[in-house]
């Protein structure tokens, strides 16, 4: 009960912050930004307490249920948003990042009824690290995609000679471009580590299906290729502009699939 309440509070606070950041885009107001930041911090506190309550009640790691895993995914997105927003001074990113966290929480609520018997293998530290690495990398990819959306938006506004005036409140092109690059640079090693750890665990789950054709594996490996290609083209081929931004957006859309596709190998139960 208490965990659900705390999660609902976090959901509401993230949503409220997103609305305030959106209002700041419409008409600059320092109060919107300051209040929005405060709501995010309060939301994170409630969310952390909610995850803690969940673990305490179930005596399991958060990754032992779909509910806990999705809640953790949302928590990581919101947590990663804070330093990115502070570093870039771009509250606008919250307009996309926080609704993404809310969407993950909403999906978690929809899966909150499941309480299956947990396979003992799910409780291993290696599985937790494997899931955590992948979740953090996906959260960072999501933030990179948010930066990419703002890049494309700003790019088009500036190409259209700044009609509408909103270009002054969007983050600068170069800033979001560099931020997206750094986020991918930080996320790809984590995704690699997550995939490698998963590969170590694969033989023990082989009986439940071939892990190579498992949707999670396919999504993760494809995401790795997409972001690897992004880094290659940006650093070695000197690409820039909207083409790479669309690649980042496509990559994030791909990673979102992992939360919805069914998997035989990545089951929590026996």
């Amino acid at each position, binding site marked *: 009960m208490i965990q659900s309440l705390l999660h609902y509070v976090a959901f509401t606070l993230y949503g409220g912050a997103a609305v305030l950041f959106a209002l700041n885009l419409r*008409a600059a107001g320092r109060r919107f930004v300051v209040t929005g930041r405060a709501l995010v911090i309060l939301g994170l506190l409630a969310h952390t307490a909610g995850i803690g309550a969940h673990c305490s009640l179930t005596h399991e790691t958060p990754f032992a249920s779909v509910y806990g895993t999705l809640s953790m995914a949302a928590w990581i997105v919101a947590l990663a948003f804070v330093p990115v927003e502070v570093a870039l001074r771009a509250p606008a990113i919250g307009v996309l990042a926080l609704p993404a966290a809310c969407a993950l929480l909403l999906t978690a609520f929809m899966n909150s009824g499941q309480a299956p018997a947990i396979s003992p293998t799910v409780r291993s530290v290696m599985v937790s690290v494997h899931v955590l690495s992948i979740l953090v990398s996906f959260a960072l990819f999501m933030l990179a995609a948010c930066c990419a959306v703002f890049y494309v938006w700003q790019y088009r506004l500036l190409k259209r000679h700044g009609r509408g005036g909103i270009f002054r409140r969007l983050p*600068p092109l170069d800033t979001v471009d560099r931020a997206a690059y750094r986020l991918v640079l930080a996320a790809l090693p984590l995704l690699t580590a997550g995939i490698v750890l998963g590969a170590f665990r694969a033989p023990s789950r082989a009986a439940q299906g071939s892990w190579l054709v498992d949707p999670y594996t396919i999504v993760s490996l494809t995401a790795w290729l997409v972001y690897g290609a992004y880094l290659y083209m940006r650093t070695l081929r000197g690409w820039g502009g909207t083409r*790479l931004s669309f690649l980042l957006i496509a990559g994030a859309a791909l990673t979102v699939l992992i939360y919805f596709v069914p998997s035989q190998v990545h089951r929590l139960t026996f």
Partner: protein
Amino acid sequence: MSHRSAPIELRERLAYPDGRVGPAARELLRAPGIHEAAILSTCNRTELYAAAGSPSAADGLVAFLERDRGVAALDMAGHFYRLVDAEAATHLFRVACGLDSLVLGEPQILGQVRDCYQRAADVGAAGPLLHALFRAAIAAGKRARTETDIGRGGFSVGHVAVDLARSIFGSLRETTVLILGAGKMSELTARHLAQTGVRVVLVANRTHEKAVALASRLAGRAIRYEEFPEQLAQADIVISSTAAPTHVVDRAMLQPTLRRRRGRPLFFIDIAVPRDVAPDVADLENVFLYDLDDLQEVAEEMARDRAAEVGRVEAILHQEVERFTAWRRSLEAVPVLTSLKEKHEQIRRAELERLRRQLPDLPEAAWQRIELATRSMMNSVARDPIRRLKEAAAGGTFNGCDLLAAARALFALEDAQGPDPPDSAPNGSEPSGTQERAP
């Protein structure tokens, strides 16, 4: 007087040179009834702010201007505005917020108000009232600029260029600016960009000597005109204003350069007529091209955005004026509170003296205790009335009653008449006693 009330010919004659503002404010204190003074003099306004014992002292300000600037009163007649108390405060707040400026929200005025206050304070012409007034006005100006878009750029082509460059590059500290053509317009635009701390300024002109001269003025580096296509690979912002009859930059020139730029954006500010940069350059990826019409259009759009912010600025202004006015009114309680405290103290001392005569053998330690106890008692008795009087003064009345008048009558404080803070505090010094803190 300001651009709203006086023609430029008169404003020119009344404008004060920088070095004269402080001394003139000091001299203004010699005018009858003037206790504090400050002079705000810009190209658009000459305004005298004074704390005086009565509104009639304003006549002395006109006489001072007539004498000091050598302008006949007849020439000035009809071009003045005379504002008193809250109206004067509101006006200064509007000025500081940029609402009274020729170009709405322009940023210089806040600095000019700050300078005006600083100069008056430096020569001791600003006293407690003007200290509080100017500090509150500067705070209102800052709030207006941080909480609304009233000061967000677009005041000129140069400002728009800086705004656009910031939207592309963020900080301009790592950018390189290339100037094509050493004309006045490119210099003006480049100056705006140079003030933001760009890394390198390169100047190319067909007459190399002119490029060298402009580069030295902008602390940049002159390059040969023939070298500029090569330098496009390094430049981030190109300001072009040559007198060439045809395009000096086209797609064919840029395409190999763009490959070498590895995706970095390139921002062209083409302020030449006829245009220096071929329009189809704008279709190239990562190239942003703005000609004079585009910049003008952005400036007009920004001006419309700023005009839409006036309501929000007025709301801030209203809050700040209210705060200042409440503080100003709270000063009215000072003489009453001082008299009340003095009267209480006199009563206490008189009673203690009487008691000493009746109990001559009481030890000194006991007297000290009695002293403390009576002092504490008097403070306790006075605490609530004092708080209520302060609130009543700040709010004007208390439940519709004039509590200050009531207190004067109840406690027979006939000497504690209405305030004249400038009289009660020396110029340039903070008031003593029960003086309220400035907002």
